[in-house]
């Protein structure tokens, strides 16, 4: 089966998620697709798998244009995708999970289907206990299960989106062996990843996406630096922000082990200095969110402690942490940070948390107006949170942070914002650092990390690195670390 993607475009509002992408996938090959966060890889794959529609462009299979109107339709035509979250049914049995979606009939044809499953398993080289619950399987096994399902329903092309996030090395080997086996059976594979070593190991060629465009096609194996350059672009020279950190520590992280959905991290030991800006680098889903949650008291660590001026923090709730001046700003602005249906003024009343019982409306209005001015929020005191644009919601979240904050934990603080807003937000944050606030932020933007952090910690595949001084890193080195290269 030969698949051609012709000039696909997809817009989300003003954003060009996919900008005229064309490529071909040959039968029996493993094609790699590289790119950083937001490059457009997942969007393109979702279009190919029938999950979303493109705005323009065509997809041809074996020389004929096709309409991929749904995931089911795409599967019927032979294209199946294994997402990072396999969209399976944890509470159902393995057999049921595989059977669901089968054609008509009142009774489940257990015998015939079981045979079919076993035949397919024979070809692939693994075996499942069909009466086991899906939730009892490991992540790697659930992936295998989903691949099995896609093959049972006639997949010729299998797309894998970041499949090795959070699986063990052994499971990774099993997966890769399976993929090679599949190509010998004549199937085609697309591997979407940010991990350079994997692409080098599995693929004969790879394409690189950046900012919605296809910027290059490379035969493999090849050396990382050219790949990194394609992925992240030329290094731009920026004036780095002044380091105003003081050697005096506020907080200390001691032997901290966090558990993300799929893995346990290595123990982390970190001193957080007053006034410093610590950047957390790495692809999304590598544990930065859990790390921030743990430092904010939202999640409990598996092991280890957080020390505040030498004393371990024992009560782990968002409230008690906020009493200590530790605040968290989530990336999902409307789902986690703001309350849809409440006004800007009400948000300030909530965040200011003074001890009064009755609200002094005049005072809160004055505060609100002052903050709106100070943070240039395009909105009124009576505007509902959901009416503000994304950028203004971010400004609101920022404005809600209390003045006395000692540690700010920011999850993707400038995502979706233009350059001007980004610079302005960082100026504001820097002012706080000058007053002694420490900041830890996660970001997918290498430039932002290099420009604004004093130190950077990298997250990759469940591992948390020791901090690097940001002036020691170049964007190539940082890109490589994010891609898994150069770790000791």
């Amino acid at each position: 089966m030969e698949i051609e993607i012709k000039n696909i475009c997809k817009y989300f509002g003003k954003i060009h998620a996919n900008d005229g992408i064309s490529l071909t996938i040959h039968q029996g090959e493993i094609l790699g697709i590289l790119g950083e966060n937001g490059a457009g890889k997942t969007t393109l794959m979702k279009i190919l798998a029938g999950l979303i529609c493109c705005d323009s462009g065509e997809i041809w299979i074996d020389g004929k244009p096709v309409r991929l109107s749904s995931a089911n339709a795409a599967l019927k035509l032979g294209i199946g995708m294994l997402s990072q979250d396999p969209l399976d049914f944890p509470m159902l049995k393995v057999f049921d999970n595989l059977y669901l979606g089968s054609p008509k009939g009142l009774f489940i044809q257990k015998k015939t289907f079981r045979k079919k499953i076993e035949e397919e398993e024979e070809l692939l080289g693994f075996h499942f206990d069909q009466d086991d619950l899906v939730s009892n399987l490991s992540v790697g096994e659930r992936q295998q299960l989903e691949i099995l399902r896609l093959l049972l329903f006639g997949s010729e092309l299998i797309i894998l989106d970041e499949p090795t996030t959070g699986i063990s090395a052994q499971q990774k080997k099993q997966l890769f062996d399976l993929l090679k086996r599949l190509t010998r059976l004549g199937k085609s594979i697309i591997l979407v990843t940010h991990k350079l070593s994997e692409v080098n190991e599995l693929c004969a060629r790879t394409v690189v996406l950046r900012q919605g465009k296809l910027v290059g096609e490379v035969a493999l194996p090849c050396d990382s630096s050219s790949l990194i350059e394609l992925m992240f672009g030329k290094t731009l020279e920026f004036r780095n922000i002044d380091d105003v950190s003081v050697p005096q520590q506020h907080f200390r992280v001691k032997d901290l082990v966090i558990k993300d959905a799929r893995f346990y991290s290595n123990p982390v030991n970190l001193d957080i200095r007053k006034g410093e800006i610590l950047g957390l680098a790495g692809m999304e889903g590598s544990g930065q969110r859990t790390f921030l949650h743990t430092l904010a008291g939202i999640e409990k660590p598996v092991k280890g402690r957080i020390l505040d001026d030498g004393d371990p923090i024992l009560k782990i709730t968002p409230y008690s942490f906020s009493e200590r001046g530790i605040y968290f700003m989530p990336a999902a602005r409307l789902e986690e940070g703001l309350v849809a249906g409440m006004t800007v003024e009400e948000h300030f009343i909530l965040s200011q948390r003074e001890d009064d019982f009755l609200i002094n409306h005049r005072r809160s209005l004055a505060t609100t107006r002052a903050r709106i001015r100070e943070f240039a929020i395009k909105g009124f005191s009576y505007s509902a949170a959901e009416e503000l644009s994304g950028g203004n919601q971010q400004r609101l979240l920022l404005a809600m942070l209390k003045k006395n904050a000692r540690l700010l934990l920011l999850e993707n603080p400038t995502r979706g914002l233009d350059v001007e807003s980004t610079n302005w937000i960082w100026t504001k944050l820097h002012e706080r650092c000058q007053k002694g606030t420490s900041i830890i932020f996660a970001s997918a933007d290498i430039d932002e990390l290099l420009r604004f952090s004093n130190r950077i910690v990298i997250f990759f595949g469940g591992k948390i690195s020791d901090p690097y001084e940001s002036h020691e890193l170049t964007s190539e080195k940082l890109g490589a670390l994010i891609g898994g290269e150069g770790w000791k």
Partner: protein
Amino acid sequence: MEIKNKSHKLLKHFSFSLVAVAGALIFVSIILWIADAQPGLTFQKLIQGAFGDATKIANGFVVWVPLSLVAGAFIITFTAGLWNLGIEGQIMLGAIFTTGLMRSMQTSALPPAVIIFLSCLMGMVGGALWASLAGILRLYGGVSEIFAGVGLNFVATAFSIWLIFGPWKRPGVASMSGTVPFDEKLWLVTIPGYRLSVWSLILVAVVFVGLFVVLKKTRFGIQIKAIGKNSKAASLMGIQTRKLMMSAMLLCGAIAGLAGALQVVGVYHRLIPSISSGYGFLGMLVAMLANNDFILTPLVAYLFSILNIGGIQLPIDLHLDSTLSGVLQTALVLFFLIMNGVKQRFLEKAERKQDGE
């Protein structure tokens, strides 16, 4: 331009509400037709039953007192995102506690006004206590407050029945008509000739003003509103969601308990089985129909009260069961919900059209 948009919006909302009322009336008319009754005559009798004479009008307010208190109480927990179905039981426990204190103070030397006042306070304690049980089950026991509430209602009913037929029974034969009535001097002072007490009316006004202030003008009120709309974000903002949800339950229970207390001291002067008279659920329906608005709620409560009173006449005059009032009340809420849904889809379509332009 903006003013025009706002009044345009109000008109749209109003017209949808009008359609809802019309729908409910048509539905009830169909039901009446099925029951071989004449809709026009029935509605007329209903209104006569509610306003026919001074006693009836006064009785309308007698029902309004507990109903609006309960509806107001329900708004608090609903704002916090809780479906406090246990409010029926909280009314009963309020009545039970009130009766209990009254019984023990019947021979006391304190002035009756003081006794009544303390008993009402006791009623609030009873209601709050019962609400705290539902709260604990929900917040610490992982049980949905819907089932905890309904379950506790059953327990409250059983408890009151046990008291009426057991330790508190009338000397001689226990009776479904309740415990021994209190001496007249311990009755809440009413307008002479009627069962309505001015104190009750004043209390309702005070409570509503208080609730309004608490919900709209205090930090507590804004916080529970945030919890109700997005408890995750509220928690991340550092709001102590559990503590506040429990407080909302306690406050609601206290007011429900007060409603129960007033039923004892002002209306029945004893404990009867099902003293809550279904006001718990009816009050919930009132709040739903009034869309949790503090100004509309007492008005809708009054509408429901007069429907209740008006319905009493029906069996006598037209041989129709008085539950017609209930049919009309619930039909109103149902059609309101339907039109709400229709309105949302209508507005969604209009918005999408606008964006497309």
